[in-house]
């Protein structure tokens, strides 16, 4: 059996990086991002990356690391609000930026992985997003065509993975990860827990191993962007 398990994030990236490559990185905000693979990608020194990710990390964390080192040439995202260095590079014209509505972006990635080169959506009709895109009427309503999106390497964060590459995701850290796993020419996954094959109930595998070429177990910091609470837990016995 071809071995999918790698011993470190940088080893998992070996031989796959090249100037001008396209990279998808899972995550929503800082939740469910492949922290270790992003760091390893920075350390690889690869240049002119097209990064496809819902957000751009924050200063000094997540994709912010690759912005600091100017390794990213272009970003395809839906929202980039939390990153000063991003803003600086963008306003200085050093960084290309393509905004996609979040649902359009998710569907483009899913379509890319599913062999669907184009689909129609109502999202963005009558807005700047529709400019230059083919249009078609269905049942007297106007829709625009969006295209499938794939990438050279997809960087994925999962909760647990088995030695066959079957994956499970945790809570809302799932987000873009399972669909990006289908859209990479090569898909590399970092997991909190690496388990033996047979550990998972086959009914509850989110990503079948067919989509995973390389897998590494790695510890994540899991930084929280906006800690929000409702106060202290009431002491037992209180009303």
């Amino acid at each position, binding site marked *: 059996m071809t071995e999918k398990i790698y011993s470190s994030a940088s080893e998992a990236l070996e031989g796959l990086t090249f100037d001008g490559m396209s990279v998808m990185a899972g995550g929503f905000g800082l939740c469910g991002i492949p922290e270790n693979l992003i760091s390893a990608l920075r350390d690889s020194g690869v240049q002119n990356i097209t990064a496809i990710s819902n957000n751009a990390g924050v200063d000094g964390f997540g994709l912010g690391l690759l912005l600091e080192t100017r390794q990213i040439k272009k970003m395809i*995202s839906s929202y980039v609000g939390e990153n000063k260095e991003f803003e600086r590079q963008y306003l200085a014209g050093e960084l290309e930026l393509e905004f996609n509505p979040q649902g359009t972006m998710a569907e483009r990635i899913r379509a890319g992985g599913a062999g669907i080169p184009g689909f129609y959506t109502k999202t963005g009709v009558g807005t700047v997003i529709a400019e230059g895109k083919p249009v078609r009427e269905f049942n007297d309503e106007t829709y625009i065509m969006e295209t499938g999106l794939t990438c050279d390497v997809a960087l994925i964060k999962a909760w647990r993975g088995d030695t066959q590459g079957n994956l499970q995701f945790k809570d809302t850290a799932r987000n873009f990860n399972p669909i990006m796993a289908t859209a990479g020419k090569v898909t590399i996954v970092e997991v909190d827990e690496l388990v033996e094959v047979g550990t998972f109930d086959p009914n509850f595998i989110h990503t079948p191993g067919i989509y995973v070429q390389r897998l590494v177990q790695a510890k994540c910091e899991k930084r929280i962007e906006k800690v929000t609470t*409702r106060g202290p837990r009431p002491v037992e016995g209180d009303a």
Partner: protein
Amino acid sequence: MAWTRDEMARRAAQELKDGFYVNLGIGIPTLVANYIPDGVDVTLQSENGMLGMGPFPFDGEENPDLINAGKQTITALRRSSYFNSADSFAMIRGGHIDLSILGAMEISENGDIANWMIPGKMVKGMGGAMDLVAGVKRCIVTMDHTNRAGASKFLKSCTLPLTGQNCIAMVITDLGVFAREGNEGFRVKELAPDVTLDEVRAKTEAELTT
């Protein structure tokens, strides 16, 4: 007397019906969750991949793997389910969400909404807003009736780049409630206490019927 933010949220909450699946935007819409009427059971969707959003966690019980679309830490409920971003927006785009309540910078009399960019300012992106207004069965906007300079935000046509066309069914401002059916214009449905129709008309560029 114009409504406060909380009063606007309370009024918006009256639009929730039992069994509804609802997506709430950031700002006043978030407050709507505090005013869900008794006996009305509502399930909140978060477009980053969750149905059945619970309240914020207690101090020290934050789960970094569990956030809402505003990136705040939240909790799950007994009914909750998680799904990926494509499935989440399939739910939104496919018209399965009953109601979305969101904020706006401008609304036009034909139901257009602008709430994602101001030319000349740093653009942060539309996130899921364009998908929500295009996909959800019914969209309600909560916003101040005028901007800080006193100019109407309720216009004949939006001056800012649009988020969506002909997609807003109701606008709840500090001055009142304005509703439209199908492709019609907005009708004044309610006024905040002591707010007069004249005041509303003076502060509204959009054509309003009564």
